[in-house]
């Protein structure tokens, strides 16, 4: 990492200073405050001690032609930083000031909490000296660590209504763009240009490839060992994040959003996924840089569905039986567990020979050499033979121990999986941004918005996405931590970043799980939880519940494609779909409902759901008053099927 050029990350570092408080931002003769000198334009004198030999200053002074010619005449990095800055900017860089006018907002407004951060900008002269010394001597990583809280709290742009993404996110994205652009083969003529407008014009037709990819697998995990596929996937994503660190702008769940200057690099990334035994499901667009300057993520990636799988090489036309029971995409040449056991060092050659010769289903304990019988008893009792391809065999063979999961013999298992719906995320962020701008007069009395500005066109750009992903990761980690505290370590097993399994004795504990989720969603994303029916929550919670021994893939086929903000499957009974903004009301009602009432309704539904619906609504039923609370849930938008599932769960 240390030999990478981290010039662009520092280009806006001056924004962490409160230049007015220090006295370096003055008012002109008319009393109007001059533009903030955050490019250190008032710090050129020797008394400030800027070391112009340090490459980072080239990015900061990119607009000063005199300094460029004097200190960095042979370098073109200043132009690439300028372009990277524009590409990484949130919306508004090209928007005239008259469109959104008002007093500057330096603190970042968080669209999903509705809160402003604090203005933590440094306001003492010695802070400015310290910063200059740091830029002179330290790496970007060291500077980032020191000024982390300010970078996260300072808005990338202080223009009112547009202060929605952090300076930190903007700096990170600018750095990536800079290094992507640096790989371009640039014409000599361009390298001699010094006018920023000419640079923009010259770069505009150059194309970049945008990739939105999901890493999928065809395996259908059945045994605990098969869950190793999630660990393999996690390792692959980590590997890709390192190999393509500059190209990957966002990584969440199994999804990647990346940009490339070369089609070969894209193809290479996709091929790496395939070679690691996974499926790359992706869409890819090529756009000129001019489009990246003005458009949002959704416009760049394309709205229409052009997703495809990579099949290079093409799967074979025919496969002779047996088909691999794991992935069902290859020949099942390996016998599990016989061939796995044959690789063990602690078994006698005699036993290994027996395992080779006798088919598993015909094998009896008496056939095994006496010295090995004790070691294989459990295998013979618990495992039926399966035919696997080498890949699925390796996944099972190299599985780490999920000791808690493997030890659960009785009770109820709930598989919990959290994902983001990307399209809903973008639409929701757009809507929240529109609402924020409309609400600006509350915060800034002199705020003016041009009537010709179409708020529906506000694009969502990369820094905002990065800020959201960071909040989401913190949310996931705290949520799963809270779940582990609530249910106990012995009854929780975390499989993946977004996948956890819980065990409990009675189904009503799912209500506790929902309560934890409700509480944390309200804290991290209160704007999603508010009963504003225009806002859809992009975060999807899937819960699938059954007896502990029910095969995982039956849960996975439900969890992988959540249909609603909260989807709960009770295997063998049905599915409940709930919106997050209904959840609080539903939990309150279930909490207040009489357990006997819940049981009765559930019992009736076992015979006939239609009858249960009639009984619920019948005002002459003996429990009509007790059902009143349950009836209140239905107008919240919950359908009857979902209500029955929740009643079933809450009844225990």
């Amino acid at each position: 990492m240390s030999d990478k050029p981290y010039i662009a990350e520092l280009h806006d570092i001056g924004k962490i200073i409160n230049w007015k408080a220090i006295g370096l931002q003055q008012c002109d003769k008319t009393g109007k405050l001059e533009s903030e000198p955050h490019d250190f334009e008032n710090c050129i004198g020797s008394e400030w001690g800027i070391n112009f030999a340090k490459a980072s200053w080239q990015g900061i002074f990119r607009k000063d032609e005199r300094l460029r010619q004097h200190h960095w005449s042979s370098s073109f990095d200043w132009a690439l930083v300028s372009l990277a800055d524009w590409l990484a900017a949130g919306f508004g860089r090209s928007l005239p000031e008259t469109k959104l006018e008002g007093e500057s907002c330096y603190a970042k407004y968080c669209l999903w909490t509705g809160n402003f951060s604090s203005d933590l900008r440094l306001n003492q002269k010695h802070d400015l000296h310290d910063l200059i010394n740091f830029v002179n001597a330290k790496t970007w990583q060291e500077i980032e660590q020191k000024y982390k809280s300010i970078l996260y709290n300072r808005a990338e742009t202080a223009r009112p209504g547009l202060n929605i993404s952090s300076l930190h996110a903007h700096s990170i994205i600018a750095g990536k763009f800079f290094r992507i652009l640096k790989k371009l083969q640039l014409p000599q003529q361009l390298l001699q240009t010094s006018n920023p407008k000419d640079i923009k014009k010259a770069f505009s037709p150059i194309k970049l490839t945008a990739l939105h990819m999901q890493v999928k697998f065809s395996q259908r995990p059945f045994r605990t060992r098969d869950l190793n596929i999630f660990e393999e996937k996690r390792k692959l994503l980590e590997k890709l994040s390192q190999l393509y660190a500059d190209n990957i702008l966002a990584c969440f769940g199994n999804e990647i959003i990346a940009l490339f200057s070369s089609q070969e690099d894209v193809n290479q990334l996709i091929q790496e996924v395939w070679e690691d035994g996974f499926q790359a499901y992706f869409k890819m667009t090529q756009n000129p840089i001019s489009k990246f300057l003005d458009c949002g993520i959704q416009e760049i990636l394309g709205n229409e569905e052009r997703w495809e799988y990579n099949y290079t090489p093409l799967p074979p036309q025919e496969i002779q039986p047996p088909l691999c029971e794991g992935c069902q995409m290859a020949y099942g040449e390996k016998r599990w567990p016989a061939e796995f056991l044959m690789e063990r060092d602690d078994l006698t050659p005699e036993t290994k020979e027996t395992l080779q010769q006798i088919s598993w289903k015909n094998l009896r304990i008496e056939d095994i050499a006496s010295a090995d019988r004790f070691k294989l008893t459990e295998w013979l009792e618990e495992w039926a033979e399966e035919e696997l391809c080498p890949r699925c065999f390796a996944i099972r063979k190299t599985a780490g121990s999920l000791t808690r999961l493997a030890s659960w013999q009785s009770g109820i298992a709930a598989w919990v999986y959290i994902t983001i719906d990307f399209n809903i995320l973008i639409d929701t962020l757009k809507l929240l941004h529109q609402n924020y701008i409309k609400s600006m007069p509350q915060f800034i009395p002199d705020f003016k918005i041009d009537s010709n500005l179409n708020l529906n066109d506000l694009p969502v750009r990369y820094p905002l996405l990065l800020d959201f992903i960071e909040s989401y990761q913190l949310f996931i980690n705290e949520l799963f931590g809270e779940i582990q505290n609530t249910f106990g370590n012995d009854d929780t097993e975390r499989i993946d970043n977004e996948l956890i399994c819980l065990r409990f004795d009675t189904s009503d504990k799912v209500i506790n799980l929902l309560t934890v989720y409700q509480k944390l969603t309200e804290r991290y994303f209160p704007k999603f939880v508010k009963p504003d029916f225009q806002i859809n929550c992009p975060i999807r919670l899937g819960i699938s519940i059954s007896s502990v021994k029910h095969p995982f893939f039956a849960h996975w086929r439900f969890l992988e494609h959540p249909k609603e903000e909260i989807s709960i499957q009770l295997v063998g009974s049905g599915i409940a779909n709930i919106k997050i903004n209904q959840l609080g009301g539903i939990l309150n009602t279930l909490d207040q409902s009489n357990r006997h009432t819940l049981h009765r309704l559930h019992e009736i539904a076992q015979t006939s759901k239609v009858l249960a619906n009639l009984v619920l609504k019948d005002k002459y039923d003996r429990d009509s008053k007790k059902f009143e609370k349950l009836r209140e849930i239905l107008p919240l938008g919950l359908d009857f099927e979902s209500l029955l599932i929740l009643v079933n769960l809450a009844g225990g």
Partner: protein
Amino acid sequence: MAEFLKYKLRAETLCFGERIRGGLFRPCAKFFRYSTLIGALKSQFGNADNIHAIGRFVQGNHEANNLKIFSFAPHDRTINISTIPLEIEYLSNVNAEIYIFKNDFTASWPKNFTLSMGAMKSKGFGRCNFEYIEDIACDKPQPGCLAVRIPEDEFVKEAFGIRKIVSPIYGYLFRPTSDSSGVYVRSLFEGSQIVAYDILLRR
């Protein structure tokens, strides 16, 4: 242009059984398998090469086409005891549409008939009632998303007007080659982007 006979299929239970996993659990596919449907029709009407058909579940009703689980202990006759209980997934209250490629042979089939399809027939699963609805004419293949699973076979592609495979999702379906054996053939799975007659496509 091609014509298809549209039938309504109703069944109390239907099991598109997949391979038993771990000796304990037999999953049920939630999509009509071409081979299962053709196999059942051939059993009923004779083993002809020119039978092509697809099935699709009717959406929109929570009460229909749900997966349920049936537990039973298969009896091993050789040792005369029941083995470890097996859980079988099956579809209950099945409501589906079947589209059968119309030719002289299939046009002679009755308007209403009953046949057995899928796994666990000996246990009473898979008794399907077919009721003829209408003839469907398909003239122009449309771009869309595949709603069924279909072998990547030239005759099948011709019958269903598959003109172009834009973005495939591949899997494998079993094709019997004799009474006791067969081979897995590369197939197009649901979600593939293709150009074909609209009866194959998601609505």
